[in-house]
């Protein structure tokens, strides 16, 4: 996703458009989380030190004339899409404003299809769309063909696996287990520890999957596995991507902010902290590596994490994030991460299972 810095007229136009969505063209009052989101969008995605305000109402008349570049138009439509689901519902009247803006700006984005389905309650259709994106990524050609779908379904049905797959799985597992022998702080060792600490089966082990990208993103971004952190991770991953960014972002907002069960796994409602969320997205947008196309984990497995993050131009975790996100154990800690393991920022002091009383963290 490309960050932009609009001029004052463009900024006012974008903000008015955001308020148009939040107010469903002036028919409802924007709620506090939407207003805070519009401010956070300006700070982090539009790189403004002093956010401006607007009032609910229709889309601005100068939408087309003020937003005169394709980058600005695309980013605006994407921001409008995000805002339309932040109220925990997916109200058709808000989605209609987004669609109107997209039409006027001549933007078609795959996220619009997901949003339309969300407004109609078609969660299974959304799941199929997301699955196709995944199989596209997994395909050596970058476009899912019958063979790729076959491979994908094969992995989803381990009861069909025979001796040949079992041998390949043993080899794959051994390779990932070998990461434990790398020095602490290296990417490979940090990834191995992430799997171990969170009791996730390594690729090749029973009940595992043979891809690692979700876990790789956790380790690179330093966002943990608490639901709030998973929401930040979807923002971060979306920020790192271009064509498929809204798949990630809308999946996260629908699953963890709107409580929609799109695919299996945990869901929740109302977890969005706008400041943390859009900062995570901007962090991802600043990364200078394409982790989707042609990236090879094994080529960087032995690189130190701090060096790797610097190489990728990843902004560090801010002190605010360390206090706030670390406060709910939302950050990964220890070797390979910028937060020490003994920082104990959250209310639950790390330690062995069942140990110690539950005491609030010191202020």
């Amino acid at each position: 996703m490309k960050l932009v810095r609009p001029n004052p007229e463009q900024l006012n136009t974008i903000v008015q458009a955001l308020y148009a969505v939040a107010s469903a063209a002036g028919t409802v009052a924007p709620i506090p989380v939407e207003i805070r989101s519009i401010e956070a969008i300006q700070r982090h995605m539009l790189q403004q030190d002093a956010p401006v305000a607007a009032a609910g109402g229709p889309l601005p008349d100068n939408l087309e004339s003020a937003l005169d570049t394709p980058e600005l138009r695309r980013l605006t439509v994407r921001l409008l899409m995000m805002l339309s689901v932040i109220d925990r519902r997916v109200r058709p009247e808000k989605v209609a404003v987004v669609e109107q803006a997209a039409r006027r700006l001549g933007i078609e984005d795959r996220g619009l299809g997901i949003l339309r389905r969300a407004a109609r309650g078609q969660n299974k259709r959304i799941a199929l769309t997301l699955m196709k994106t995944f199989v596209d990524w997994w395909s050596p050609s970058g476009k899912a063909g019958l063979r790729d779908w076959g491979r994908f379904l094969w992995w989803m049905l381990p009861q069909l696996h025979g001796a040949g797959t079992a041998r390949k799985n043993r080899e794959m597992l051994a390779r990932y287990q070998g990461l434990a022998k790398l020095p602490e702080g290296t990417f490979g060792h940090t990834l191995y520890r992430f799997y171990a600490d969170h009791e996730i089966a390594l690729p090749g082990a029973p009940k595992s999957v043979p891809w690692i990208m979700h876990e790789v993103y956790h380790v690179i971004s330093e966002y943990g596995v608490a639901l709030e952190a998973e929401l930040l991770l979807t923002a971060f991953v979306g920020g790192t991507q271009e064509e498929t960014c809204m798949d990630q972002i809308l999946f996260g907002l629908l699953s963890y902010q709107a409580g929609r069960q799109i695919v299996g796994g945990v869901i929740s409602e109302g977890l969005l902290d706008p400041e943390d969320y859009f900062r995570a997205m901007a962090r991802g947008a600043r990364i200078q590596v394409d982790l989707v196309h042609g990236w090879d984990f094994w080529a960087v497995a032995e690189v130190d994490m701090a060096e790797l993050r610097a190489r990728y131009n990843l902004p560090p975790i801010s002190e605010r994030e360390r206090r706030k996100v670390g406060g709910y154990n939302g950050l990964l800690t220890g070797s390979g991460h910028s937060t020490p393991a003994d920082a104990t920022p959250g209310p639950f002091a790390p330690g062995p299972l069942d140990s110690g009383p539950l005491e609030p963290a010191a202020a």
Partner: protein
Amino acid sequence: MAAQVQDDGATLSTGIVWSDAEFKRRLLSGPKPALRELGIAVPDEVSVRLVTSKGAPGDVDDHSLMQFVLERGDDFAHFFLPSPRSPCAQQAVYGRILTKRLGDPLLDRSIRADAEAALRKLDGTA
């Protein structure tokens, strides 16, 4: 087994949700009275909605993660009730696994602390 306040006056442990199918059924069908039996008193004017999901396909418990969304007008707050038998659900709530033991008081205290914080937030006293 009917869930009631225990003989010594103490409220039931939240662990009963995972050990008493009848109590769990009542919690799912009408959260507010069942929460009251757990000592989590939600005021009459506050509505409770339940968002449930399953942490991992292999979880023993269906609905291994329950989120109680408390709403009063436009204000809302929430707290979670994860299964002690679902490492995934606990990690989703706490960022780590608190326990694997059914009836562990650590998990019970954590859930109660979150519920009280949610009610305070709704009261504007958090």
